[in-house]
């Protein structure tokens, strides 16, 4: 009797788990169906001549609204640049008004939680505070998370990486349902430009590895781990020289641009053109194109240009 009961139970369990498994697959199919529904009207939206909030409101509306990216109940990571202990006027960090606005849009779209962090270069609490980002995020209802707690980082394989094969990544980058990458457009002494891809260095624990082993290739390699769902490049104030930290406001010019794109390579390419530098000079953009992460050929894309 016992054996029969055991066999029966095993059989039942197998069927049940199989059913669950296929249901899981079926869920994915449904999700893919939704993705098709979510097809974006444009590959890129470039907007200029407005304040950060208005430009984002207009641009995201042109892309079909934040609900295209964030579904009700999802967890969102918004990843700005909060690398430096500098005020917003210095443009070393992402514009706080823009970050706050994005957090608000995420909640309006039904996000369960919106987290914001960066693995800062200067002492992080000073960066969060003086950049104005902490206040803006809290006001919009989002949560500020430290990037300086190593126990929050998990080692991951970068299977498509050429040089960067594995690295420790913040668990929010691994676990969040949606990633919104919000770099600030600026000059960079080592990497030439600091844009969407460079900004993702801030979710990695060991940056020294990058600097030791071909910075440009590592920056491109990491994007193969997980592409952000949306890149928003903040070109409101642009640091034209002495980047990425800058010395004074004399390095900064108000350009009032914003670029939104799912294609990280295209977004960065567009940003180099706005900045006025040959894209070829920025090594990691070309390397990323080689890795199939996007295109530098902006003519092949359906771009919506808006001047406010």
């Amino acid at each position, binding site marked *: 009797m016992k054996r029969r009961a055991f066999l029966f139970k095993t059989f039942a369990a197998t069927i049940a788990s199989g059913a669950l498994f296929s249901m899981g697959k079926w869920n994915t199919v449904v999700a893919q169906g939704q993705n098709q529904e979510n097809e974006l009207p444009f590959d890129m939206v*470039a907007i*200029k001549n407005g304040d950060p909030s208005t430009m984002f409101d207009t641009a995201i509306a042109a892309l079909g609204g934040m609900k295209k990216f964030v579904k009700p109940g999802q967890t969102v990571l918004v990843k700005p640049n909060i690398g430096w*202990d500098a005020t917003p006027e210095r443009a070393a960090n992402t514009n706080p008004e823009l970050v706050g606005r994005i957090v608000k849009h995420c909640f309006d779209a039904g996000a369960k*939680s919106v*987290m914001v962090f960066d693995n800062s*270069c*200067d*002492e992080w*609490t*000073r960066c969060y505070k*003086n950049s104005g980002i902490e206040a803006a995020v809290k006001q919009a209802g989002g*949560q*500020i998370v*430290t990037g*300086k*707690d190593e*126990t*929050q980082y998990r080692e991951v394989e970068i299977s498509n990486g050429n040089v960067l094969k594995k690295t420790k990544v913040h668990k929010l980058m691994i676990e969040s349902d949606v990633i919104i990458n919000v770099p600030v457009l600026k000059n*960079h*002494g*080592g*990497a*030439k430009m600091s844009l969407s891809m460079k900004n993702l260095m801030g979710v990695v624990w060991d*940056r*020294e*590895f990058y*600097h*030791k*082993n*071909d*910075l*440009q*290739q590592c920056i491109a390699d990491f994007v193969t781990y997980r592409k952000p769902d949306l890149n928003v490049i903040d070109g409101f104030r642009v640091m*034209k*020289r*002495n980047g*990425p*930290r800058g*010395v*004074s406001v*004399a*390095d*900064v*010019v*108000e*350009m*009032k*641009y914003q670029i939104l794109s799912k294609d990280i390579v295209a977004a960065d*390419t*567009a940003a180099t*053109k*706005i900045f*006025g530098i040959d894209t*070829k*000079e920025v*090594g990691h953009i070309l390397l990323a194109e080689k890795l199939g992460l996007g295109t530098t050929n*902006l003519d092949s894309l359906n*771009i919506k*240009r808006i*001047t406010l």
Partner: protein
Amino acid sequence: MKGQRWLKLVRIIISLFFLAGFLLVFSDVRAKLPSTFSTILTYFQFWPSIQKYSSIPGILAIGFVFVIIFTLIAGRVYCSTICPLGILQDAMIFIQKITYGKRSKYRYKKPLNFIRYSILGFLTISLLFAGIFAINLLDPFANFGRIASTIYQPIFIIGNNFVSKILMHFGFYSLQPLPIKEFNALPFFFALCIFLTLISMVIYRGRLYCNTICPVGAFLGLVSKVSFLKIRISKNQCSQCGKCQTVCKANCINVKTRIIDESRCIACFNCINSCENSSIVYVKALSRKDKPVLMQDINKRNFLKSGAIYVTSFPLIAHIVKLGDGNITTIRNHDSENPQNSPGDFRTRGPISPPGSKGIDNLKANCIGCQLCISVCPTKVLQPSFLEYGFTGMMLPRMNNDTGFCNYECTKCGEVCPSGAIIPLTKDIKKITQIGTVVFERDHCVVFKSEKSCGSCSEHCPTQAVHMISYKGFLTIPETNPEICIGCGACEHVCPVTDPHAAIFIIPHKVHKLAKLPANEKKVDSNANQEFPF
């Protein structure tokens, strides 16, 4: 006279304010508290205040004068309400009491005056030979600081991070984990020794440390002999029941003779509350009423005079001695250091002193080694020295570019320094205070060796004293401009090269200089109003 029971309550309230305040200050790992808070708390600390007066004389550094005035008026109230090490011992006594049900019963003991005044005398004489080093080792505030910094603060951080981790596990990120500070064996074991000594002395005889070892206690004991207000036993009412001596932490009440040794009395007022006959009173000692005849009263006037001279001359002596000590250390350091022809050598570069300390000699002459600056340094660049400053410069703050780099906008260490060893700098002055200058060894640089992009150093450089210039193809390589370098150590800290050492590093100045301001570059042109370039 029943009305004097409030004295003990006031003593407890003030002492709790100081103890809680200091624990708060030493919990301030990221320097979030306003500096004025710790300035108020440290203002009345006796030895730091004397140091501060001889470093930056002025109204902000005369706390020690007030302490002497307090003592002349009211006896050693400093020891029972302001001194954090004294309050710490009271806390130990309190814990002992609640752990064992009742506090240990004290009895009258003879003073260990020989040890006590030998230490005071020796420390005064040692000023001539070792500067303030020997005093720093026994000073109560410095010792409290070392205990708070190396024993209390790590426990606080670990506790905070434990709670924070639990909250994070459940998705709450409001309580942020604190950075674990570096472990430094010397100050830790020194503080541990003092801490264990305190515990055993407290168990053995209450405030024995304060009345035998502590130089401030010994000095204020002398001053309190001539204080205006004293605790006295009224002969008429006293039944010699001896209750008062069982609560006297200083073991200074002799019930047989009804005499209180005011040089040891720390004015805790426990005895007043213990006396059922209300025969212990806090009264004007100069009035003849209720006063037993004592030897020292006869010579009071003479003592007052000589005491006043001693007190006022103290900072002066310290100042004169310091000048001499500066010369001695200069000569000594000169011997041990390499000649000036190799200023760029990483291995023999010597310690880097923090901005505001003016240089190594000034730091050594004024710093009492309380670790307060190290405890609040938000970037962990400040670490206690071992033998880098020499034997008499142990446990002083030094810039360690391995553990961090000096935040360009931060002026915290100078703001909290109780002894004026690190003077408070305004942001503008701090940003041009040059504690050392950058040296770049191109042969070791990643860009030169592997021909790949890096630029980590320039990235972090706040003045662009390290900037990137064109190299091969699109590559850029660092170039330095030491004139505008302030020596913050960011480049050295982040340089990915470790073998044999960073490819870019700071060579310290023995005496700090002023850096040139970064060249006022013209505002960049705007090309904002163009059409979309794509």
